[in-house]
């Protein structure tokens, strides 16, 4: 199997440097992070705290009435561990009036509403605290599109988006994220007993092994099969990646002028800084 192990000291140095640089160059020294109680946001919190200091970080817990107590408790463990400022802003009173509009509402719609309400809270706290919102999506879920567009995927910068879930686990351990958080089953906690892996139908560990070959090593499907992966699994994952490309891009702009944003108006975000 592929070796996804990373040098965690080097990852830590590059990623904390990234956070500090990309905040400071646009005039910020503070950051806001939504803490779910899961490993991804705990790792983003650890990296951000190391990058800019605990006094400059605001962690926000945003429980819904159906959220598990474990999620809230585990988020508190991370807050205590890294010593950052924190707020708890329940989203139930934002979410419930929307859900009440349609008694037939699906779980997916409800989940999307929750994710987007949390985004609203975070961006409001961004303005209030004077800090940018730090992303918490890892490479595996970005590739799979396992996120709510304009919801949990929204952020100003993302330090962990090039780390597979397996690598998130490795780096989290190295940075002292509490074991309870690292060891539990990943869950979006949008409804009771939801887990990512039962919803996806495969484990992150297996997806990561495949992605390493497909994405990083540029294996073709038949080479992945020769390396031991089931062809139906490879094709299903690839289809997911393709179908969710839209979540990884800004909305395309219809070109009619000579120079169009997104096509031939090309500048980095760090332009002039």
């Amino acid at each position, binding site marked *: 199997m592929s*070796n996804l*192990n*990373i*040098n965690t000291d*080097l*990852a830590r*140095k*590059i990623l904390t*440097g*990234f956070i500090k*640089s*990309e905040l400071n160059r646009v005039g910020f020294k503070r950051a806001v992070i939504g803490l779910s109680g899961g490993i991804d946001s705990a790792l983003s919190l650890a990296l951000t705290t190391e990058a800019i200091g605990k006094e400059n970080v605001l962690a926000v817990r945003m429980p819904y009435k159906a959220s598990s107590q474990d999620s809230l408790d585990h988020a508190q463990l991370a807050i205590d561990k890294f010593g950052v400022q924190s707020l708890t802003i329940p989203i139930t009173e934002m979410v419930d009036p929307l859900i009440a509009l349609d008694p037939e509402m699906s779980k997916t719609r409800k989940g999307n509403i929750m994710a987007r309400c949390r985004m609203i809270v975070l961006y409001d706290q961004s303005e209030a605290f004077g800090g940018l919102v730090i992303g918490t999506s890892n490479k595996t879920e970005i590739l799979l599109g396992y996120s709510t567009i304009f919801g949990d995927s929204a952020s100003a910068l993302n330090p962990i988006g*090039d780390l597979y879930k397996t690598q998130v686990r490795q780096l989290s351990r190295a940075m002292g994220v509490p074991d309870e958080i690292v060891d539990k089953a990943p869950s979006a906690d949008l409804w009771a007993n939801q887990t990512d892996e039962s919803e996806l139908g495969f484990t992150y560990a297996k997806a990561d092994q495949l992605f390493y070959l497909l994405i990083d090593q540029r294996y073709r499907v038949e080479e992945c099969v020769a390396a031991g992966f089931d062809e139906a699994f490879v094709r299903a994952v690839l289809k997911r990646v393709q179908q969710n490309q839209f979540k990884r891009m800004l909305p395309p702009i219809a070109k009619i002028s000579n120079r169009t944003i997104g096509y*031939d*108006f*090309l*500048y*980095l*975000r*760090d*332009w*002039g*800084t």
Partner: protein
Amino acid sequence: MKLALAQINTKLGDVDANLEKHLNLIGDAVARSSDLILFPELSLTGYTLQDITPTVAHRPTADDPIFRQLLEASREIDMVVGFVDEDERHRFYIADAYLSQGKVIHVHHKVYLPTYGLFDEGRFFAWGDSIRAFDTRFGRVGMLICEDFWHVSPPYLLWLDGADILLLTSASPGRGLNNEDKLESARWVEHTNRAYANLFTSFVAHSNRVGYEDGLNFWGGSTVYDPNGDLLVKAPYHEEALTFVELDLNQLHRTRARLPLLRDERTHLVQAELNRILSK
């Protein structure tokens, strides 16, 4: 000869701010009695310029407001600076200029523009079309920029053209994190530069930048290898540094007395075989 490696971060598209940093470091290097200071690729502009390119171009002449100040500073120390050169016909090049004693001694235009993977240089820049060594007060020297020395032919040509010191500059984005203690991009460049020092029995100095541009990190780790392939100095990874090293140019004599690879290089054989291969 005392060399200073200026491993800097840059402001993307802000030539005035970058010039100020150059002048400060030049002052530091002069204060430490350095003879030559080597800045990284595009040190006056930043790397991922895209549509900024035409707005940050300069001519390396005494009437250019940026180069006038650098040329003035070059009366006290030789220097290599990285910039965007706009020629008379308004083609833009990734360029290095060697300045000494108030004069532009040589300008190199990058001859290999990576346009693959994360790189898009060929979209914004013209390809340089010459590879020439040139004389300095420290002997004959050659300059190459980043992708230029990922190909073996430019260093080889400079060697044949008389360069005993290779001055390499880059803005190399860090990539390929695995379980090793350095990035794959760092490992590749260090192996390659050391190999050039060995194969060409020459000094190989490399100045790489640091800092970030959006999600790209630049890894630094600037190095100097001597004609035996031994590492003389290495700057830290990922941090700005002004690193000094003394080059004992007599090492060329000692190494080549022991190992006459240059003497024995059969350039006519190379030429004959190249002619045959290219005429196929």
